[in-house]
């Protein structure tokens, strides 16, 4: 047997401070009421740093700083000069990508292979892409002279901390807005390192403000009357609350919420690649992906064969230390999320679905959950309806393309879907009928800054990425 020796990425590249302040008006400042919280490494429960908790006064200060920067500096600045700053930020991100990747894996628990090969390249690509738009907004299809909105309040989740920051900040800044961003309370560190990068890039003070904190901080931020735009990525439940809070105000809102995507495998699919796609679809980032392919729909006549291949492949997944370069599946981000995954998995077993996980040893400390599939799942089961947001796959079968469409669409969500078949015409036929914002064909979880991303129904509204992603930050 060929055992891989541990190949840990060095932590020494990251210079962790014992405590972090808020990034307001170009400087790190202490919160007005001195509140702090701890952020931990989910793979070991080790405390990484103390982070300031922003209260109403701090949020107000940040919004004012953003307003001032918008009115005096960033709003009037010619697009090509804004582009210069964005290109500079993109380059610094590339230069410091190893440091950012290690910090992301430490704070989030995702494997270094993913933070290094997926998150960071996409983060830099987003800044490069939107930097290119900054001086070409009049050609983006939103009129001759599209104007920015003003101050954007942005609240992002913990699953792709830095990538979601890039999705939010890059288009906002390119369009001429200034931002106040609140990272998730379990993963604030890369956003704070990004704040340092803004300083390094000489970005004018107040253009980017980072306020750390939990749900209350986010609520105060989106409800602040000085905000012109609210962008949120996270759970549907919080998204609803934000929509209620913003209703009736002048604030423009985009929401990117939950999902329960169907990954549909036809009998003529390229089986080995489909199995890879199923694995990528649900086990990428521990399944902490809003567009995860969490419902696998397999055509009945190949179900046994596909499941056999899938189980064989799952037995090869390497679960463990996120900083080991050979790890495929890292830690669950928090105790709370682990509890939710356990609750829904237990419900799956209780409701009669058959549960299977490959034999795998989980570390003793930290938050861990083995990759799991449920077979014999019906549409009525909770695990087929609710977003688990973990490495848990529900397997259903279908007989005809029409039945596949019906089952795939039978969900309140509509963020993404996958189709696996060698038949091009069937891909087009299915894509026409699937009510999902993104439809992948013979691939899954593929992202690119040029491609718009967003949902239908309870998965939210508005698009991020591509030319379409500018619309949410322009007065059109």
């Amino acid at each position: 047997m060929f055992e891989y020796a541990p190949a840990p990425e060095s932590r020494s590249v990251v210079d962790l401070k014992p405590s972090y302040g808020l990034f307001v008006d170009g400087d790190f400042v202490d919160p007005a009421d001195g509140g702090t919280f701890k952020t931990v490494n989910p793979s070991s429960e080790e405390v990484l740093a103390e982070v300031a908790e922003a209260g109403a006064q701090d949020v107000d200060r940040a919004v004012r700083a953003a307003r001032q920067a918008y009115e005096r500096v960033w709003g009037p600045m010619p697009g090509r000069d804004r582009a210069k700053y964005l290109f500079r930020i993109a380059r610094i991100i590339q230069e410091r990508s190893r440091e950012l990747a290690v910090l992301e894996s430490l704070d989030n628990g995702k494997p270094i292979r993913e933070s290094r090969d997926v998150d960071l390249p996409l983060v830099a690509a987003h800044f490069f892409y939107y930097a290119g738009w900054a001086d070409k907004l009049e050609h983006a299809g939103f009129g001759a002279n599209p104007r920015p909105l003003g101050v954007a309040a942005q609240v992002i989740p913990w699953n792709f901390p830095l990538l979601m920051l890039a999705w939010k900040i890059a288009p906002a800044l390119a369009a001429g807005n200034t931002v106040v961003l609140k990272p998730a309370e379990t993963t604030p560190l890369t956003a704070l390192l990004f704040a340092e990068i803004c300083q390094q890039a000489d970005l004018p003070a107040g253009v980017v403000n980072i306020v750390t904190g939990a749900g209350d901080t986010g609520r105060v931020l989106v409800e602040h009357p000085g905000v012109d735009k609210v962008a949120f990525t996270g759970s549907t439940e919080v998204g609803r609350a934000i929509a209620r809070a913003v209703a009736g105000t002048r604030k423009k809102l985009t929401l990117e919420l939950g999902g329960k995507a169907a990954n549909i495998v036809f009998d003529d699919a390229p089986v080995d690649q489909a199995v890879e796609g199923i694995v990528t679809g649900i086990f990428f980032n521990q399944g902490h992906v809003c567009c995860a392919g969490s419902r696998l729909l397999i055509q009945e006549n190949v179900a046994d064969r596909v499941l056999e291949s899938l189980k064989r492949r799952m037995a090869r997944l390497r679960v463990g230390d996120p900083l080991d370069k050979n790890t495929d599946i890292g830690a669950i981000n928090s105790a709370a999320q682990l509890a939710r995954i356990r609750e829904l998995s237990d419900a799956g077993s209780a409701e009669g679905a058959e549960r299977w996980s490959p034999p795998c040893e989980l570390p003793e400390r930290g938050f861990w959950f083995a990759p799991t599939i449920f077979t014999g799942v019906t549409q009525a089961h909770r695990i087929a309806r609710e977003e688990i947001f973990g490495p848990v796959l529900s397997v259903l079968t279908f007989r005809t393309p029409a039945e596949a469409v019906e089952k795939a669409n039978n969900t309140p969500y509509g963020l993404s879907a996958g189709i696996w078949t060698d038949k091009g015409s069937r891909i087009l036929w299915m894509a026409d009928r699937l009510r999902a914002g993104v439809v992948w064909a013979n691939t899954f979880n593929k992202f690119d800054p040029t491609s718009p991303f967003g949902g239908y129904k309870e998965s939210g509204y508005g698009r991020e990425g591509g030319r379409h992603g500018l619309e949410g930050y322009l007065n059109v």
Partner: protein
Amino acid sequence: MTATATSARSELSELGRSETALRTFLHGLPGVDQVGAEQRAAQLGTRSIKTTAKAQAIDLAIRMVDLTTLEGADTPGKVRALAAKALRPDPADPSCPHVGAVCVYPAMVPHVAEVLRGSGVHLASVATAFPSGQAPLEVKLADTRAAVAAGADEIDMVINRGAFLAGRYSEVYDEIVAVKEACGSADGGRQGRPAAHLKVILETGELATYDNVRRASWLAMLAGGDFIKTSTGKVPVAATLPVTLVMLEAVRDFRAATGRQVGVKPAGGIKTTKDAIKYLVMVNETVGADWLDPDWFRFGASSLLNDLLMQRTKLTTGTYSGPDYFTLD
């Protein structure tokens, strides 16, 4: 799956009898998505193999090398030197294992045989009008028999790519069956020398698509090949990781269907330890430990061995010696 395995096995052995049956079967195999296969191969290439795992991989890779010379300029002296190196790749370090085999042209086989006799290092000979295969069948069979008679215990044949690409699968199949027969009688093990192992070179660089690679792999296995091999090393595109991935999937599925295990040999263009380790990772994570053995996986290579030896010395001594410390052959 197991309940139907026996009937599946007998059905598969019948396929070669009819062109239609063979075509229907080969074209009914699941397709290969090019983007997905290449992405998976690239992902496996990012594995980080260090310290003890690297030492283990290097020794295994040395044992898997088919140390090859296939030049018009080969001489008896040169191939003897190569055979000596195959036996003791690192004369300074007796703990270094010997390679899997030496691979030469048929005319060179007797010279190599003298050196290798009784050593456990196999003697492979290319045959069947290598590398083009453009000769009448009788010539190819005579080529094969001559190599076996001279002492080769492994035959690396080339398939008829022209016939394969034209869709004349039976022709390719029958040729492999005939060469397999020329390698020696099936029960020869009991009466003297065992039959030579047959490696079937698909020349994947000329097959153009991964679908074709998968079909050619199955065709070669159905016809009785003991190994499937990527390339001759004589066309511009030789072994690649994605091609080897598709072939590994084929041998895995073939064993599941028939119970017979077939080996895989990427050949050509594998020059560094880093490359070799990527292949071993791919074997490990695609077909598993059963194939991590020189009986089931080989590298067709020449310059690879010296790089493996240099890395091996680096790991054991901590210093990196220059190329002058290793023999050139």
